[in-house]
């Protein structure tokens, strides 16, 4: 395998003909090996199903790399940048597989802390009333301060634990747009909680 500088990678992958084919042939095993070493906490990288899955990820990543060569800023090694793109492709697909059995409707109903009673199993009726009132207050804040889309995002990501990339896909948005939507939502709720004299600690203390 030929060792290349960043400029040589860019020149060869941007060329037409054998230089490009050779560079792709050299980059492919680097990316495959990276996935095998990097994804150990996500999948069984020594199992028989890993190799074909990794080949698919790398194939898709190579297309993205070749289409975006001009965006490489040169602040890292070229191979690190290429690994970054491959990792994004792989994790997006692995998250999709992990969450494929969870429907959006189920998530939106089942994951809401407002959909269950916190009043059960409380030591005293006064405590039960306190919990019920706190949840009603929180629900009111979320209803009054957030748009439908922001509420949906809050239920899926911070409450439901769905990864941002998967939630964005289900909501028909880019991940970046979802982050901005959630940021606006978090900021609005934070300001309202402060106006109402509430803190995360004081709210959680009601339920402990």
């Amino acid at each position, binding site marked *: 395998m030929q060792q290349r500088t960043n400029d040589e990678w860019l020149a060869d992958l941007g060329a037409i003909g054998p230089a490009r084919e050779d560079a792709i042939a050299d980059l492919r095993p680097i990316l495959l090996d990276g996935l095998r070493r990097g994804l150990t906490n996500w999948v069984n990288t020594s199992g028989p199903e890993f190799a074909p899955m990794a080949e698919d990820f790398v194939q898709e990543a190579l297309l993205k790399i070749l289409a975006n060569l001009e965006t490489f800023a040169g602040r890292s090694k070229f191979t690190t940048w290429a690994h970054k793109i491959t990792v994004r492709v792989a994790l997006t697909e692995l998250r999709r597989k992990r969450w494929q059995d969870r429907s959006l409707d189920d998530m939106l109903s089942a994951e809401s802390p407002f959909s269950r009673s916190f009043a059960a199993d409380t030591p005293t009726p006064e405590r039960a009333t306190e919990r019920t009132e706190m949840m009603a207050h929180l629900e009111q804040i979320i209803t009054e301060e957030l748009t439908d889309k922001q509420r949906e995002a809050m239920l899926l990501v911070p409450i439901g634990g769905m990864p941002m990339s998967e939630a964005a896909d289900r909501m028909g948005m880019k991940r970046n747009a979802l982050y901005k939507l959630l940021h606006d939502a978090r900021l609005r709720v*934070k300001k309202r909680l402060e106006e109402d004299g509430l803190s*995360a600690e004081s709210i959680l203390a009601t339920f402990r």
Partner: protein
Amino acid sequence: MDEQLLPALQRLENMLNMITATEEDECDCAYVDDVMDEIAELMAQGVDIAPLMPAVYHHLQLCDCCHAEVDVLLNILESAETNTTP
């Protein structure tokens, strides 16, 4: 405490923690993606990015996807140091 209450409380706590950590200005996923290869190389060299890039560090505390991608990239770079492959 009832068994159903605990996961519901954890979900509530997750939401409240994220709200508490919210800052007026936060960098987004696109910005973090732009610098992810650079910060992973710095982290692999043992550099603490919290004081160096506080906005990126803060984003990584709030965004599970970017956090996971940095972790995997770091795994690749750190394991490369013990191998010969880049």
